[in-house]
C-alpha cells in the first residue's frame, strides 16, 4: 500500500501536509518529522484511519511460490 504526503507550501512558507497511508502512531510520527523540518506545528487533525491499529495475528503463511 502506498504511503503518500500531499504538501502545499504557500508563498509565505506556510505548509499544509495531507498524510495518507500511515496508520496510527506512524501518522503522528510523520507529522512530527514534518514539523522538525519546517518549524512550528499549528494544528494536527487526525482522520479515521489514524485510529486504526496494526494487529499482529501471529499467523505465518507459506506458499510454494
Amino acid at each position, binding site marked *: 500500500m502506498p*504511503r503518500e504526503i500531499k504538501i502545499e*507550501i504557500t508563498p509565505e512558507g506556510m505548509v499544509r501536509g495531507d498524510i495518507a497511508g500511515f496508520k496510527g502512531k506512524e501518522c503522528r510520527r510523520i*507529522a512530527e518529522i514534518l514539523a522538525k523540518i*519546517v518549524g512550528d*506545528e499549528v494544528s494536527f487533525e*487526525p*482522520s479515521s484511519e489514524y485510529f486504526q491499529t496494526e494487529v499482529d495475528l501471529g499467523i505465518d503463511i507459506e506458499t510454494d511460490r
Partner: protein
Amino acid sequence: MSGIVILAPALIAPAWPALVSAAGAVMVAMGFTAVDQAVKATQEAKVDSQVANEVEIDVKNVEEVGATLGREEELVFTRDGISVRFSRDVRGRLKVCVSGEEHSKTELEELGRTVAGKVVQQYVYNRLIEEMKSRENMELVDQSIDDDENIHIKLRSWED
C-alpha cells in the same frame, strides 16, 4: 486519509549555502541576475550617487543564519534598475535590502516582502524533499504551482 498537519515556518540556523541556493532559484525565476562582487562595488557607488530609494526587510521566520555566512558576505541580484541584497545583520538574522532609483519605497517594500516569502517557500520546499528522501525514503512523484503561487508536491513511499 490519516491526518492533516498545518505548519508555520521557523527556520533555525539555516546554513548559508542552502539559503543561497533557495535565493538564487527564486531570483532567477523572477528575472533577476546575480551580481558578482567586483561589479557590485561599482554598482553600489553608482546607486549611492543617484540617491536611490531603499528598504530593508527582516525575514522574521528565519532565526540566526548559520555561521557559514561572514558578516561581510552578501548576495546581490539586479533587474531593471532594482537591486536586491541578501545579507546577515548584526544580530545574525537574514536581511533583505531592496533599492531602486525609479521605484517608490512602497513598491520596493512590497517586492522585498514577496522575495523574502518566496525564499522561505523555496527553502522549505528544498528541505522537505531532501529530508523526507533521506529520513523516510519518500520520493517526489508530482509537483505543480497553482495560480496563487502555492507549491504542491506529492511524496510517496511503499509500505514494507
